[in-house]
């Protein structure tokens, strides 16, 4: 999803769906985040108008929760584990490898919006360390060849 092609019809459909609910802000934002991969900053004022709250309050909520993002993310969001177990099992070099292969630093998104690289503390699958997630799929017992294979599998050329 690139910032240029925001589907405004879809966005207003989501807003309309939640407008009348009582505590609608969070579910609404979740659905937008889900649908677009991020919350387009331009949508804040539209949401505010619909829910009759201050735009700046919505921004406050978005920036408070790690689950919301104002920046568009890649099609695949990598969450590389930096927890203790993974660290012991060489998680650091796995991360370094991913960084060089994708040309991204932590928190960055590639220009083609294919990948976003994030790190996280303990994915809760320590037995499989070192681990990472691609969107909602776990990958464990990572080794350099396995990493290369996973990245290749999700790359643009592969599609």
């Amino acid at each position, binding site marked *: 999803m690139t910032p240029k092609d925001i589907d405004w019809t879809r966005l207003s459909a989501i807003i309309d769906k939640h407008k009348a609910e009582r505590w609608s802000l969070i579910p609404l934002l979740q659905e937008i985040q889900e649908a677009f991969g991020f919350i387009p900053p331009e949508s*804040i004022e539209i949401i505010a*108008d619909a829910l009759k709250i*201050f*735009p*700046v309050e919505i*921004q*406050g909520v978005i920036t*408070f929760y790690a689950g919301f993002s104002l920046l568009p993310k890649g099609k695949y969001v990598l969450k590389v584990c930096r927890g203790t177990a993974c660290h012991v099992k060489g998680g650091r070099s796995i991360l370094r490898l991913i960084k060089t292969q994708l040309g991204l630093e932590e928190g960055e998104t590639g220009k083609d919006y294919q990948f976003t690289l994030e790190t996280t503390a303990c994915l809760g699958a320590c037995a499989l360390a070192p681990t990472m997630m691609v969107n909602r799929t776990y990958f464990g017992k990572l080794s350099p060849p396995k990493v290369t294979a996973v990245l290749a599998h999700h790359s643009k050329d592969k599609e």
Partner: protein
Amino acid sequence: MENITLFINGKSVSCPRGSSLLEAAELNGIKIPRLCYHSELKPLGACRLCLVEDEKTGRILASCVMPAAPNMAILTDTPRINRHRRNIVRLMMAEHPESCIVCNKGNRCQLRQIAAQLGLGQTGLYPMPNYKPLEQANPFIIRDLSKCVLCGKCIRADHELVLAGAIDYNFRGFKSRPLTLHDLPLEQSNCTFCGTCVSICPTGALAPKNTAHAGTPEREAPSVCGFCGVGCSLSMGVIGEQVVEINPSDSKDSVNGATLCVRGHFAHDFLNAGQRLTQPMIRREDKLMQASWDEALDHAATRLMEIKKTFGPQSIGFLGSSKCSNEENYLFQKIARTVFETNNVDNGGYLSGRSGLGPIDSKTGGGWRVSPLANLEKAESIIVIGADPGHTTPVVDYYIRRAAKKGVPLIIVDPRKTDLTPFSTVWLRIQPERDVKLINCLAALLWKRFGHDSIFIDRFTEGFASYSEGLSSFNRERLCVEAGVDMSALERTTDLLKGKRIAFVVGHGILQQRNAVRAMEAIFNLMLMTGSLGSDAGGLYALARENNQAGAWDMGSAPDVLPGRQHLDDSRQRQRFERAWNTRLSPDQGLNTIRMIMEAEKGNLKALYIMGENPLRSLPQHERVLKALENLELLVVQDILETETSTMADVVLPGAGFCEKSGSYTNMEGRIQCVDPVVSPPLGARADWEILNILSERLGLPSRYNTIGKIRAEIVQHVPGYAGLDHGKNTVWISNNSQRRLFNREGQGEPIAFSPVVFAEDSPQNEDYPFTAIVGSKRYHLGSGTRTSHSRRIRNLGKNGHAEISPADGLELNLADGDKVRIHSQCGSIVREIMLEKGLEKGLVYLPAGFNGNDVMKLIPLTPFEDRHSTGLKTCRIRLEKLQSVT
């Protein structure tokens, strides 16, 4: 409310049920340290400084969020609590930068105060200041968020008190900060620069930007804002004889509470402008030359008397000021009426719509006058019509926003998107000046659907039968279309209003329009029909543009009324004043502001004495006003600033600003506030009432007024509603002396009459001038902007009064933001830059007044309101001519 008893520090104390522990302690004189608590804000419990210990359980509680319960026992000052408090403050200080010493908050910083109280010098912690870039591009507020202690007061003030929605918490943990939308600078956010957050911020994170680094004020003194008719209570910080800072006063029952607006907070620097008049002057061989007070006053007195003798009393006019005090206006009109035997006395209030309110005043015997703004939050419904109080009278706007947030139905009637439309339940987007039609339609629909208050109508009114007949006599659908409003929107409005009393907030869109009188009558009929008068749940709130507009009128500074708004043609009242003043009073109305100028133009008016007005800026068609003033044999100007008008005067008398003299002022609610001088006038200038007193001595007026109290005593004697002024209190309310049954405790007296249903003609179309310009205000200038344009901060904001047009018209005329146009009307032309404004409909142009010498008035013809051909001061027909930019 029910009281409960508990123990604080071993002492039995009581407090109302529902108080927090902190409030309970406070009520009983026990002070608990706090940073994030504020009595007007919802408690947040963020800073943890207000900790107390539960004696029974040993639990530590944040007292600002903990409700007091019966028989609770708490300790506010134990070693354990103090250890916690000290640790919290140490952490805050460790995060604080070291720019404390040059901080603009200076000794008002509460963090410093608390640290001192707790005996903290060095924190002993590794400093880890949280540096943020300093924001200070705007001329009002410096934001240095590295000093922020995250108390959330600014955010709560912004959301709960002024409801601007400019800032909110963003991020969390160490990164957490109050930010604007998209983290833009304040001037690109919703911020109105009301400064409420600045005054409430306990640290230097938010501080006023001073035009020169002034340091901490040496003393603070109470005053009342001298700009708009709200009359906010202020606390002025002073160094030497200079006002350097303004905050809302902490008085509990002020009209503004903890809020102010950008003018009251920041525009007072006009007092220190280089253009202040400090020397009397006399024109000699066509040049204004310095003179002594004696010379100037002698000259003025002699010439005035000569002119009276040669040309008669009607050849002299007195233009007083809606910015001067009650005492000054009283004395001013007394001089005019007794020494000069003329009713040619008026003030700037005429231009802000006195004519529309006059009939309501007469109908109710003045009974509508007392309408506390606080009642707006208790209203059953609110209609805001022709008003954008966010710009004219911002504190009124805050009240309405708070009411709307509480769920009070809010109907906006306005052709433009205003600051309030986002808060409205219904916005009736009317065509300009079709209000009479719309209101009558609304009344007819309410009547048809039994939305009227028949008990009220029966008991307190008369003439409903013929009024209601009038309501059934027209085609609602057609009229509604002509007014530009959807019938369905009107039906929705009717459903909302049915059975409710209505608070009407009426602005200059009504009061200054050509149909002002008819529109006010229609509104008033609707008020009577819905029982909205004389109740806290409804009421009439007429916005007053200037601080003493209401008072100047009360004092008889008007050509048709004596003090107490007693009509000149009421012979009993006239005789009463003839006896009191030992004079003869003519029953004939004098000239109003515009007629004075027109008579000068014709050569009939020979002398004009102006106190605190600037007609060359405030009146239409400046070139005609200029000619008229040139025509005069004598022009005396008493003012505080060198103005367009004062430079033409034959005698100039330097007066004093609102906080440089004693006086009382009456606000739009009917609240009379007395102020004492905070600083002295600049050397050489004098309080205006003193000038009038000395002058009247030279003119042979027998009474002497060596103190303000003497004038006040006379007011108390002659102006019935002002009797309370006698009691030495600083704030009193006008007392309601109306003889109407509605306002009479015993239910005696006359009913109030409905006016017949009448319609007003729409203004004629004119092919050559296809656009309708609406002239309005921006919050940075008050009225014609004489004083605000001398505020350096306001000038530094760099706003220049863009002409706003709809994007559709922009497209059609090939005009983009920043393009220059010449705007022509039938009587003049001005040049403006264009701004595209989504909130405007095609065909409308919005022109803010006050900018560029208030030249928008060149577009409007100089006609008195009462003239059949008057266009009012609110709209005019124009055309736009694109100017090629010179690059």
